[in-house]
């Protein structure tokens, strides 16, 4: 059984169609790149899988169940925007995650914070943008989830922070879990991807195994992206 199964998913705002008949299966144990230019529908699809948006038609199943409390228990989601209360300290946020998610491991979170020399008593509103993003990533990756969905985790951060983020993802995701990384900065994540999903104008444009695509096309995923989405 697929971890996530999207069947005929459509989403529109008024007359503006954002997702058009998305049919997709996310397998277990893979790192998947959800790739597409800005405004292609990546974030909308991610929000639907997380239960933040309703579809106009079609169904989304996670572990064979409709989106709901059970799917939220197994999905660890990092949105593209800051989403925690900045008036809380890191320690308070760890307690918050620990209270609500049975699969949250506080020890992992504290170890990752220690590597950053971060004081858990510091409030997020005293930190830089990059540091806030790192804290949010630590919270998300400290869960033993079935699926990690990371929406633009490396957008708007310096190259050193990008390396830190990718390293944190790779070394902390749960064994047997899948990771969906949405981005348009393909070059930076190409080396870690098992599979890719290209999304264009709200439709699935291309899917496949990253290595097979590279071999069959004789170019990198980044180059395939640039060719397919040439302006």
């Amino acid at each position, binding site marked *: 059984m697929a971890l996530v199964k999207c069947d005929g998913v459509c989403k529109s705002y008024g007359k503006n169609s954002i997702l058009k008949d998305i049919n997709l299966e996310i397998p277990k144990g893979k790192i998947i790149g959800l790739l597409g230019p800005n405004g292609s529908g990546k974030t909308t699809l991610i929000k639907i899988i997380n239960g933040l948006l309703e579809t106009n038609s079609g169904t989304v199943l996670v572990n064979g169940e409709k989106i709901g409390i059970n799917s939220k228990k197994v999905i660890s989601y990092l949105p593209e925007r800051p*989403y925690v209360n900045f008036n809380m300290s890191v320690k308070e946020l760890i307690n918050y995650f620990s209270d609500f998610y049975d699969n949250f491991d506080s020890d992992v979170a504290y170890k990752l914070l220690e590597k950053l020399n971060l004081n858990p008593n510091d409030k997020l509103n005293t930190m830089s943008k990059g540091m806030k993003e790192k804290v949010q990533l630590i919270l998300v990756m400290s869960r033993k989830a079935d699926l990690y969905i990371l929406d633009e985790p490396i957008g708007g951060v310096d190259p050193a922070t990008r390396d830190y983020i990718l390293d944190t993802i790779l070394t902390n995701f749960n064994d047997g879990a899948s990771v969906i990384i949405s981005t348009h900065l393909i070059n930076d994540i190409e080396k870690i991807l098992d599979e890719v999903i290209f999304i264009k104008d709200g439709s699935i444009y291309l899917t496949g195994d990253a290595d097979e695509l590279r071999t069959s096309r004789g170019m990198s995923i980044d180059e395939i992206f640039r060719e397919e989405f040439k302006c």
Partner: protein
Amino acid sequence: MLGKVLKYDLKSMGKSLFPLYAGLLGLALVLKFIGFIADNVSAFSFIYSIMFLFFIILVVGGLFYTFFVAIMRYYKNLYSDEGYLTHTLPVSAGSLLFSKVLSSLIYIILSAAISFISIIIVLGFNDVFNVLKEGLEFFSLCSGMSVGTITLLAIFLLLLSYICYVLMVYTGISLGNMHSKNKITFSVVYTVAIYYVTQILGVLMLGIIFLINPDIMSQLDQAIPDKKYFMWVMGAGIGLNIALVLVCYFICYNRLKHLNLS
């Protein structure tokens, strides 16, 4: 999970409200002290008057601030960026909404209690008690109920009205967030529209009561109106408020169940 959601709602609102409570009680004690001095030193009477005015503003403002904090908690936690976390917690929409309503109720009771205690500190227990007693005895005469019953009924009515206003704004925010742009403007427009609809419903209901009981008009100039009419108006008011609470609660719940956080 309701208990956990409630814990964080209470904590978050408490961060904004506990400094107010400390300020209110502190000012009441200072005012009491200055009151003692003003009894003997006339120069302090002016300072006492100014501070008393400020105290009254703080008491009334504090209750409005409690309302504002409850509304902001609802908006920020459910419909701002923070909603991305709240709505991905393994918690039902019913628990999220019930916790918001319950925490707003708990804090208005606490704010009212702190205000009451600080007024007693400043004015003394007997003076406050006598004013309240006179008011309650009047309503006891009007209704034919005992003072104890009418006290409980008054507390129930005040809390019901408060929750009604809180849910009206919650509903306005929930409906405003159905739009993809200008969400705050639409939230205000919906809230004002809901308020006016409830006012019109209230007037219509009074009109119906007057039609059913034409001789009720003769009661308007009575110092103590007939018990029957008093009960009619009060019963209708309670009924309308309960109906509004139920309708608004359902709309808020429905919007959370069919979330579109954009």
